């Protein structure tokens, strides 16, 4: 679709998500984290930047699901699946928030 005149602009291509699809949270295991995030958005006038901590907490919940349930239930974990593949949070755009956390720790 691009012509010679558009050599400096990108052509639009629909793209699949980088890390694939989220499995559905059928049991609402992370709903509480989602509610906290939505509450933050409402309180901040829908300022996404103000709610990154809550967003990070939600994604951590998704990544943690398998580990927590296995420990709690003590039965075969084959049926359980993660709601999100484990990924270092720094790689998901939260590096600055992680750095802040580790800076705060030595003070405790």
């Amino acid at each position: 679709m691009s012509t010679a005149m558009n050599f400096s602009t990108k052509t639009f291509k629909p793209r699949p998500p980088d890390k694939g699809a989220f499995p559905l949270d059928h049991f609402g295991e992370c709903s509480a984290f989602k509610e906290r995030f939505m509450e933050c958005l409402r309180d901040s006038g829908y300022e996404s930047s103000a709610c990154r901590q809550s967003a990070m907490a939600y994604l951590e919940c998704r990544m943690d699901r398998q580990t927590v349930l296995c420990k709690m239930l003590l039965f075969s974990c084959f049926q359980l699946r993660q709601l999100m593949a484990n990924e270092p949070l720094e790689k998901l755009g939260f590096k600055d928030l992680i750095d802040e956390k580790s800076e705060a720790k030595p003070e405790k």
Partner: protein
Amino acid sequence: ILQGETALAFYKAKNPTDKPIIGISTYNVIPFEAGQYFNKIQCFCFEEQRLNPQEEVDMPVFFYIDPEFVEDPKMAKVDLITLSYTFFEAKEGQKLPLPGYQ
């Protein structure tokens, strides 16, 4: 949302019928030209998802806007980008024209 910063958004889907539905969704970005700057890290789209009878689920999208967005003069007047999803029933044997996914 700031360009380059990752963000989370939620959609909600409900199956109001008394039968399970297998659905699949595709997305659209408005304005059209902003679509090239919209990067999905992870979402619920492009894969079949099953909704049980009367089930309502949250559907997250984790994304960011390419920082080059602010350098594109055509985007100078764009301060609102709308992302929409169409969730429809998957039919057996039907294949979505997926953009190289799977």
